[in-house]
């Protein structure tokens, strides 16, 4: 059976609008079948509501007024606010939070006639790399249900990989789109910081958070990015430089091919990278070389400091961003009678946040404290600037920096989460792009013992046109995606 993609479904529905209803029936039938095992979603919209939305879209298709994403049945990570649709951040703190407004990306999807199926599971407040830190339940990897799907956008990746949605949105602060994409054989893009509006994305680390698509192919990724990218007056950090139609670039890449100069930073494939992953990565490089790519190897010592710098900055910002959850205006609420403000805040925050969130708030509070700020946050910011400068310099000489997306194969449930440092270590390849604000994509490149492996390509700022073009070509060489585990079909 051929795996349907967003692009193929959109095209099919354009000529036969009525098929949309069938696709919805099919997706709900599959959700009923696989969700009890995988648990990709936190909230699934009632089928009747989705069918009502579909009716409107079908009408528009018939009258020729439909938007670019008519037919797109999408899943949204549960840290992106959706008006009237519960948004929990996988936290007890926001268990019953119903946002009164839509994130800018949601507005853009809807105004292009995409239909939301539901909100996906994640690590609480996007803090984690396995989707085990959800306050509700972990999500399982459809390629091996004893294994994690990666995180924190694990639900979004699994929904797409297990055909429970045609495409999804995740968020990526240190690899949260790319990690689960790599572990589920999907394509995950973290755009340049400032290409996609963060308005409505519940903040984890504001200076690194970016919303990105998770899809079954590069062209699908381009379709979603085309709609969500661009300047937004509601996000001062979103300057949204767009230079092309992403879908056209992708088609060009597939048809004409690209010859690009790739570079590998030795420090990104040495320490902590499993031998099977390294071997697979080298096989992939050889295939690319055979297709006209050049590959160089360089050493960048500063990369060794990227993981600690990343965690200091992320936790510092998180401690600030999560201060607002005090139970007074929304979210978990407690009777305040007989208690002081501070007692109320402590009680709500003790009960509302999970262990990992508390750990990061505490460490973050510490690194921003007077007397420690200079030694931690400020120093980490300096490391960050150096990394950025070094990478920008490298990208003047080469077109893309490539690496394995993840240093390991998908771990078993419970394997990594027991030790925070072991958990943080698997972000070693991905955090670099967030520190430097650069775009990076994970493309499925291999299977080892039936477990997916991803290939990461990182480009210069706002080079998404070129990045997607090259990724599409690479995808056509590697021929892994689109794919899905046979048992879900």
């Amino acid at each position, binding site marked *: 059976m051929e795996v349907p993609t967003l692009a193929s479904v959109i095209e099919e529905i354009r000529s036969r609008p009525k098929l949309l209803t069938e696709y919805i029936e099919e997706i709900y039938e599959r959700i009923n079948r696989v969700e009890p095992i995988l648990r990709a979603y936190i909230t699934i919209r009632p089928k009747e509501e989705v069918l009502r939305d579909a009716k409107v879209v079908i009408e528009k298709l018939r009258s020729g007024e439909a938007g670019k994403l008519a037919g797109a049945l999408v899943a949204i990570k549960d*840290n*992106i*606010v959706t008006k009237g649709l519960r*948004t929990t*951040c996988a936290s007890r703190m*926001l268990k019953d*939070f119903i*946002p*009164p*407004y839509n*994130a800018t990306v949601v507005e853009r999807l809807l105004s292009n006639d995409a239909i939301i199926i539901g909100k996906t599971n994640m690590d609480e407040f996007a803090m984690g790399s396995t989707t085990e830190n959800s306050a509700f339940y972990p999500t399982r990897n459809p390629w091996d249900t004893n294994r994690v799907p990666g995180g924190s956008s694990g639900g979004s990746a699994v929904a797409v990989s297990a055909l429970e949605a045609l495409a999804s949105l995740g968020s990526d602060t240190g690899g949260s789109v790319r990690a689960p994409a790599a572990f589920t054989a999907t394509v995950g893009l973290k755009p340049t910081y400032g290409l996609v509006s*963060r*308005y*409505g*994305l*519940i*903040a984890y*680390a*504001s*200076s690194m958070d970016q919303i990105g698509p998770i899809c079954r192919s590069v062209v699908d990724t381009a379709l979603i990015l085309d709609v969500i990218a661009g300047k937004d*007056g*509601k*996000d*001062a*950090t979103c300057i949204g430089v767009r230079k092309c139609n992403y879908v056209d670039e992708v088609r060009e890449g597939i048809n004409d091919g690209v010859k690009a100069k790739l570079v590998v930073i030795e420090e990104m494939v040495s320490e902590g990278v499993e031998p099977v992953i390294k071997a697979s990565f080298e096989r992939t490089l050889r295939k690319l070389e055979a297709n006209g790519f050049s590959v160089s190897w360089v050493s960048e010592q500063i990369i060794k400091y990227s993981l600690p710098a990343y965690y200091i900055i992320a936790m*510092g*910002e998180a*401690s*600030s961003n999560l*201060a*607002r959850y*005090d139970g*007074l*205006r*929304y979210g978990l609420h407690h009777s305040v009678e007989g208690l002081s*403000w*501070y007692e109320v*805040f402590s009680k709500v925050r003790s009960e509302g946040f999970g262990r990992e969130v508390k750990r990061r708030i505490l460490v973050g*509070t510490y690194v*921003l*404290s*007077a007397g420690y*700020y*200079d030694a931690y*946050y*400020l120093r980490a*910011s300096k490391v960050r600037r150096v990394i950025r400068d070094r990478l920008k310099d490298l990208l003047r000489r080469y077109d893309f920096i490539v690496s394995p997306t993840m240093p390991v194969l998908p771990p078993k449930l419970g394997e990594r989460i027991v030790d925070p440092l072991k958990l943080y270590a698997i972000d070693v390849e991905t955090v670099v792009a967030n520190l430097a604000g650069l775009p990076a994509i994970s493309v499925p490149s291999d299977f080892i013992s039936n477990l997916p492996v991803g290939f990461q390509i990182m480009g210069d700022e706002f080079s998404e046109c070129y990045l997607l073009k090259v990724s599409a070509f690479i995808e056509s060489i590697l021929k892994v995606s689109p794919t899905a585990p046979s048992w879900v079909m």
Partner: protein
Amino acid sequence: MIGLEIHVQITSLKTKLFCSCPADYRGKEPNTNVCPVCLGLPGSLPVFNMRALREAIKVALALNMNISDYLVFTRKHYFYPDLPKNYQISQYDGIGSTPIARGGYIMIKVNGNLKKVRIRRINIEEDPGRIVYPFASAAKSPYVMIDYNRSGIALLEIVTEPDLTSPREAREFVRKLASILEHLGVCNPRLEGALRVDANVSVRGGERVEIKNIGSVRDVEKALSYEITRQLAIVKSGGKVVRETRHWDKSRGVTVSARVKELEEDYRYFPDPDLPVIRVSKGLIDEVRKELPELPDERITRFIRDYGLSEYLASVLVMESKLLADYFEDVVNVCRYPRLIASILINEFLRWIDEAKIDINEGIRRLSKDRLCYVINLYSEGKISTKLLKEYVKRIVLEDIDPKDLVKEGLTVLSSEEFIERIVDEVFREYRKAVEDALKNPKAINFLVGQVMRKTRGRADPKLVNEIIRRRLISVERG
């Protein structure tokens, strides 16, 4: 030693500092002037209102300050229910951060002496919401309500060096600052809560005490006098003034301890990653400088020079309120008599609006330019005396009455000779002794004039009365 921290709302803005909610929050139903941004809802982001930068530059220039090349916002963290994000977007003087302006001064005049009060810095920041006590005070209220309508209003925090040495100086400083802000058009200081003063006070041998919640210019002096007396009494009796924050309780006229500060609070300042640094160009500063309006000191000088006012009249007119000074110029341009008008406005108009507890806008509406000029004309034509002029102003302000109606009521100088002669006859009959005195001593004539004025309740034209009495005395003398 006294240092002040003054929070000034930029009331000239149409919207809040980081969202598009209206800046005019006063008198609205609680929690109706809000949006996801100023409520700090999850996912919302601030976007800076660029107009606020212009306004801050205006103030910085007027206070002779150095303006930063960059606009940087910093998060200041503390947990409090009126602060929706539990951090305030503010500015900070530290590594990677900077206030919008540093190092300026204001000249004030106390007891005829000029004094320079240094300004340390200005921050642009957001106002928190407001905690509303249902039963007047925190102590009496079993619960509180929080109104976020004010949350996110643009504020300038103006901090002085501890240069002030008396409550009187502090009051003069705030008065001068309010006048400058009003002339700049940045803040209407008469709006409730638009200008709020916190003061740091210490006396020799004591710790620094912060007084919060001082709402008006007048209260600055009262609160500081109370606090200094309190601290001196403690030191004198051998006690120790502890480091603390106290609240000014306006109704009781005392300061009340709010919390004891043992340590410097750790606000965990760091640059706000949601707000990119903005360059403040020299071009923008020059543009604002060119548009600066006339400031109070320049205006006082001009009033003295162009209208011949005394320094006292000129400075009261200007510093009391820009509205009053504008009104004064309006009236004088139409009907002249600047000195008379200045003194009427200060001695009569201000007194009666205060008595009637009406604001200056309403006062000016009642004593409109046309009405005042009409009255001034009556005076210049001799139809009313100085005394009646004051009576007119009083009644117009208190009763909102048209002066033409007062004329109809007969409230003018009695210039009918026949009528005055009759009264003079009466007085001559009643005070024979006084008439004899007046024949011997010309100065004694004043008693007779006074009696006539009394009988006409001040309405007789004194000149005419004098003339008639003299004529009558001559005819009495001739027998």
